């Protein structure tokens, strides 16, 4: 979760595993959109001596659709390469790394960024420095200084960072995957145990983030800065992916590897939990290789989600109205595949047209919330999920409540959600220190020396 190790094939390929994507109007720079896409999930901070990095043989992409057809209108491509100062040591660093230029840092990583639009590619930057992983007080004593050095402002106006961060996604993995348990309500479970407090399993694990802040005017179809929430021009469809070359050859005798063929997509991410929870196991790998514009193939999985059928079984007598609901879930189709059309939520829409596509849909005319609610739109905060996604949005609770029927009345006024639906909660309330209030918004990674603390 949200898409960490969510499919059989990609679970074997962490460097390319697209775990989450976030997109929001930057709260401190509201004329920009910040997009974050995460890879290499569930990193134990002490995982050396070959600490985590992006795949040098992976193409990472962020896609933006501004015309409502779910095809990429703009793509940002990221490619990485590593450099060894001294191949004759096993050490990642031979002394404290006090700057990105430190000669003590042995294995460094760099990246290039290319913008593709109208069939034309433009290299925006190359040999941009990544920060090292956060190792400990002797190796990376002033980590935030190193991270700040890795924030790059491009001549075209974008600000970009690529490197290790603390995973912003919070979830009680241990409970959820133990037959859909929610610790605060587990006395109601089919296999009951005394209630407990939710556990944030991803609190102290790291991830690799690509963070880019982009002027809104460079993303809209007419170069405007939208102010009308109800205008179609205000809505951007956003997703990310990773790709590998089709063929890789290992030539052990010559200590070389070579590749051939086109880039082939192997992971993608739009809405949190889509592939994880909606797509069945036998189709997850195929889904990862497809484009959002083809997601009509998964319409029935959204209209009749497996989890909606499981909840009344796992929590007997708790969801009788949900159990009786047999109609196709038009509410989930709107949230996940088309966006919410006008007239569903007062003063809001993020509809991108009739094409069924799993994308984050961000209405950039909605200003950042002054008092954000992690429950987003269902919590009355139109600047949060499913209007894009902020790092602190509680997407697990939002989507569990939606699947349990909370959002059915948006399209069917006769349906009454079960009383328990609004009480569904994974029981996790991350501290404000879990996030940053300014770029790159995702917190400093935990270091290996101090984590886990004794």
């Amino acid at each position, binding site marked *: 979760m949200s898409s960490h190790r969510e499919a059989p094939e990609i679970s074997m390929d962490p460097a390319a595993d697209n775990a989450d994507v976030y997109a929001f109007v930057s709260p401190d720079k509201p004329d920009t959109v910040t997009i974050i896409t995460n890879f290499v999930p569930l990193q134990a901070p002490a995982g050396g001596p070959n600490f985590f990095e992006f795949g040098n043989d992976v193409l990472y992409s962020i896609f933006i659709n501004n015309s409502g057809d779910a095809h990429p209108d703009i793509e940002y491509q990221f490619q990485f390469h590593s450099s060894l100062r001294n191949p004759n040591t096993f050490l990642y660093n031979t002394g404290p790394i006090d700057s990105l230029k430190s000669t003590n840092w042995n294995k460094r990583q760099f990246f290039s960024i290319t913008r593709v639009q109208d069939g034309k590619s433009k290299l925006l930057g190359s040999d941009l420095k990544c920060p090292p992983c956060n190792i400990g007080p002797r190796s990376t004593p002033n980590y935030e200084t190193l991270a700040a050095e890795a924030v790059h402002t491009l001549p075209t106006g974008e600000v970009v960072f690529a490197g290790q961060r603390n995973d912003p996604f919070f979830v009680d993995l241990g409970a959820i995957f133990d037959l859909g348990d929610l610790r605060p309500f587990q006395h109601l479970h089919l296999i009951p145990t005394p209630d407990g407090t939710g556990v944030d399993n991803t609190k102290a694990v790291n991830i690799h983030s690509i963070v880019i802040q982009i002027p809104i005017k460079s993303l809209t179809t007419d170069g405007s800065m939208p102010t009308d929430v109800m205008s179609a021009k205000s809505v951007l469809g956003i997703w990310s992916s990773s790709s590998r070359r089709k063929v890789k050859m290992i030539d*052990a005798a010559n200590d070389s590897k070579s590749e051939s*063929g086109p880039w082939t997509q192997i992971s993608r991410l739009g809405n949190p939990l889509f592939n994880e929870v909606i797509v069945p196991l036998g189709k997850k790998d195929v889904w990862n290789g497809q484009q959002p514009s083809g997601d009509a193939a998964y319409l029935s999985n959204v209209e009749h989600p497996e989890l909606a059928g499981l909840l009344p079984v796992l929590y007997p007598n708790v969801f009788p109205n949900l159990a009786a609901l047999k109609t196709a879930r038009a509410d989930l189709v709107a949230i996940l595949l088309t966006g919410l059309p006008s007239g569903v939520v007062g003063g809001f829409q993020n509809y991108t047209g009739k094409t069924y596509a799993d994308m984050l849909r961000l209405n950039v005319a909605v200003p950042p919330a002054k008092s954000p609610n992690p429950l987003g739109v269902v919590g009355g905060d139109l600047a949060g999920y499913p209007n894009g996604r902020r790092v602190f949005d509680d997407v697990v609770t939002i989507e569990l409540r939606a699947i349990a029927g909370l959002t059915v009345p948006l399209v069917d006024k006769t349906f009454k959600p079960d009383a328990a639906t609004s009480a569904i909660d994974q029981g996790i309330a991350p501290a404000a220190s879990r996030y940053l209030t300014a770029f790159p918004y995702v917190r400093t990674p935990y270091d290996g020396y101090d984590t886990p603390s004794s």
Partner: protein
Amino acid sequence: MSTFSRRSFFKAAGVATGTAMISISPAAAAAIEPGALETTPSGPLPQEPIVAVIRNAELGEVTVLSGRTEKTYTDKLLVKRLLKAASKNHHSGQGVA
């Protein structure tokens, strides 16, 4: 899908014509089957391997991956030669590169 000659196969793949190689890379060039017809390349060897994948032996369909491209052709003679080479691999036992 298009029909084409072996000459155009190698031309499409960016390799000098007349060489009966299944795939070629600087490192692999030295491992050409003894007795295979070799010619002097008209241009620099590609830095990446060229890979031929038999899609359908009966129809003679072979997919060529070269650089960032992938295209499927029909060439029954080429497919036949590739299958013959593969058969020789099997008969000569499992090797380690």
